[in-house]
């Protein structure tokens, strides 16, 4: 008989260990089914949370073989096929304090969530007695971000958060975005500024949050939008914005990046000299960059500039 072995990370408040459970294989089952089966048939002390069973309550996120998933909607057959194994390792979400076994503590996240003012700051156009008018197009902008079930998978997968506890969890950035683009919200800046102040530009573009999100929310595009808005808000005096603007200007001017001036524009001359010089020297020595050769406009630069003009015109119309 085929069996599946679960290696589950346990934690009792002081001690952490892995425990193995073997259950008979059944086709068409989910990770949650297995966890329940283990708890009810083998070990009533195994602790995990789950509620709705259909991916709307966000209770049951865990990591399986290092990947964060919702236990209720993740097919065992698929996992066994993808990993080519009958042994699955289940661990709690990363970037959360663990309470017991697979149960994590959400309290610190709630505190961080509050920083972006995760509530509508209503415009004068509506009132509690009248509600608002909002067009279907305007609704569509908030349709996907309000799919978020706050399951914590994006937090668990976030590479920046793992290194930098200042960085806001992607689901919190999503919440900031959701209000920033809501036509009923009077103060997008109040949601965006706290994100900027929490290292918004430090997102690594690793896309782990996007590829793991069970609701397929385009967190990458939302983060890009929030960054653009900070520039529109006049927040250009930071390395992230300067880096983005340097890209923008270089490509418009010559159609390519000027790798000599890029770090200077991003980090300033002093920082570049003190921190990047040995690296720059190595690049020069190996012929990767030539500081004497200034980039000239590429062939077809007129076309690139036409694209810039077109985008600018379209944006003008949107505003």
């Amino acid at each position: 008989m085929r069996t599946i072995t679960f290696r589950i990370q346990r934690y009792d408040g002081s001690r952490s260990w892995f425990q193995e459970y073997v259950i008979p294989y059944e086709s068409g089952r989910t990770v949650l089914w297995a966890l329940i089966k283990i708890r009810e048939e083998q070990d009533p002390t195994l602790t995990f949370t789950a509620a709705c069973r259909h991916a709307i309550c966000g209770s049951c996120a865990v990591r399986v073989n290092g990947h964060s998933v919702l236990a209720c909607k993740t097919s065992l057959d698929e996992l066994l096929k993808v990993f080519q194994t009958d042994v699955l390792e289940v661990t709690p979400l990363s970037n959360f304090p663990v309470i017991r076994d697979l149960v994590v503590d959400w309290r610190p996240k709630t505190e961080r969530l509050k920083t972006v003012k995760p509530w509508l700051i209503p415009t004068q156009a509506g009132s509690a007695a009248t509600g608002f008018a909002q067009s279907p197009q305007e609704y569509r902008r908030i349709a996907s971000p309000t799919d978020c079930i706050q399951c914590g998978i994006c937090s668990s997968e976030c590479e920046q958060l793992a290194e930098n506890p200042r960085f806001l969890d992607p689901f919190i950035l999503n919440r900031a975005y959701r209000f920033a683009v809501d036509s009923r919200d009077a103060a997008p800046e109040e949601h965006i500024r706290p994100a900027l102040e929490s290292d918004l530009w430090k997102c690594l573009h690793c896309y782990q949050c996007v590829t793991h999100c069970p609701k397929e929310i385009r967190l990458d595009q939302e983060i890009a939008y929030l960054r653009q808005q900070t520039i529109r808000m006049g927040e250009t005096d930071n390395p992230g914005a300067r880096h983005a603007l340097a890209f923008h200007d270089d490509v418009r001017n010559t159609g390519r990046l000027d790798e000599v001036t890029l770090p200077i524009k991003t980090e300033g001359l002093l920082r570049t000299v003190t921190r990047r010089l040995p690296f720059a020297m190595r690049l020069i020595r190996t012929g990767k960059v030539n500081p004497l050769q200034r980039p000239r406009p590429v062939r077809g630069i007129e076309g690139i500039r036409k694209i810039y003009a077109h985008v600018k015109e379209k944006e003008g119309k949107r505003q």
Partner: protein
Amino acid sequence: MLQYDIVVVGAGGAGMSAALAASRDRHLRVAMLSKVYPTRSHTGAAQGGINAAMGFRDPTDSVEKHFRDTVKGSDFLADQDAVEFFTAGMPDIIRELDYYGVPFSRDEHGRVAQRPFGGASSPRTCYSADKTGHVILHTLFEQCLKNGVEFFEDWMLLSVVVSDGKLDGIVALDIRTGEIHPILARAVVIATGGFGRIYWTRTTNAFNMTGDGTAVCFEAGIPLKDPEFVQFHPTGLARTGILVSEACRGEGGYLLNKHGERFMARYAPEKMELGPRDLVSRAIETEIREGRGFGEGLQAHVLLDLRHLGREKILERLPQVRDLALTFEGVDVIEKPVGIRPSAHYTMGGIHVQDYRTCATPVEGVHAAGECSCISVHGANRLGGNSLAEVVFFGKYAGLGAQETARHRDFGNEKRVVAEAQRWARVFETMRKKTTGHNLFQIRDRMAETMWYNVGIFRTEKDMVKALHTLDELWEMYQDAYIGDSSVRYNQAFVHYVEVGNLLKLAKAVTLGAIARKESRGSHAREDYPHRNDGEFLKHTLVYKEGDRYRLDYLPVRITKYPPEERKY
């Protein structure tokens, strides 16, 4: 010792609405207890929508029509003054939710979009795609954060302490630390949801819908009203019982038997698939019993066919429905029909609320709202889209009622609350240290099985008496249950032990109410009494628990406008 002016227990739609309304008075300290993180609450699972006669989609719709539909849907067991109050207030609630930021789907004029729903004479169900409950729950959570409501998540209600018909306080378990706390409060709002888990495996409910607040109030002497009325949702997925939104019928889906017939023509020739839930559920079960379904036993089902709606409409309006069918049945509804069968969905009965304006119960200081309560606006059968409406609406009025109570009431008897906490601490200790006894999961599963087969969609006296014996036997076994976890920290086995105890008490009340109601009305279908009997049973059941004794009583239905008539669709 913890002390609050108002404690709200339960952080779903009703609890958060209550906390929000109560916390507007900055002089009152409001705390909110929840067994789970607030956004995990089951309100989030409501997909289809929230009813309010806005008249946007159909200008001929009116509060009056919503009132009438709700009374008719209730099979005339709803209290009409309460229904009138409720339906008249709903349009304002929608505007308020809009102002809080609920992302409603919109019509071309920028107004909140509305769709048709079962049992409604006009399309009045406001919605946000098929995640209406989810977005309302999250929006209320945001507003509670804004108002600085104090959350105690992972706290479970164990007792409501009452002396001389008045609230003293409550006792709750901090699941994380294992500490059991006495909490003093001038007023409490119980908003802990329904108890569909008495049918454990065949229910659309989340695992934690174990009726904790209802059972605790029942134990404290507050009667249960109309517990025998349990709604079975017609469209549970065949294999798991997971809910597929009523929106799939609202948007025009067909129900087909194995001959490919739209069999609803036999049961509701006018409304067809848009008949009310109880009628559609019984129609499906009848098709299965008479051999026109697919499969056998617990695998039997009929088909829900959405193909004719077309890819675009399905993706636009029913994306979650498609996703559910794909994940849990492996069927893409754009290409194939999906197997469905009724699944226990909603408990119309609950904590007896005697004043619908404040949601006050017979015990001074205790208010209740949402599925845990029975006001009654749903009577013998709830209409789709009326539960989200109820939680937000009556949650708000319960919060305002509790505010009023807290302003004029003092704290109760501290000693009794402390003593009750100590009693629970001893129970916890005993259960942690116990090394043998009956398996808790087996007790639970036998309860569910006996309820599904004997007190389910079709009921007879013989079956239900059998169920009663089994429940008594299980209660005996429960006294010697074994949980198998000695941990103080996050002991879910103990939490589940308390939950199963709650379910057993509630299951017995359901069965007693159902045996005594010798008629068929709304969701309560007696094969031995197939007709409604207004002469004898146009009244609410009240079940009291006095120690181990259960006692039945009745209460007249308040009829203001619509005298009972035959319910046809």
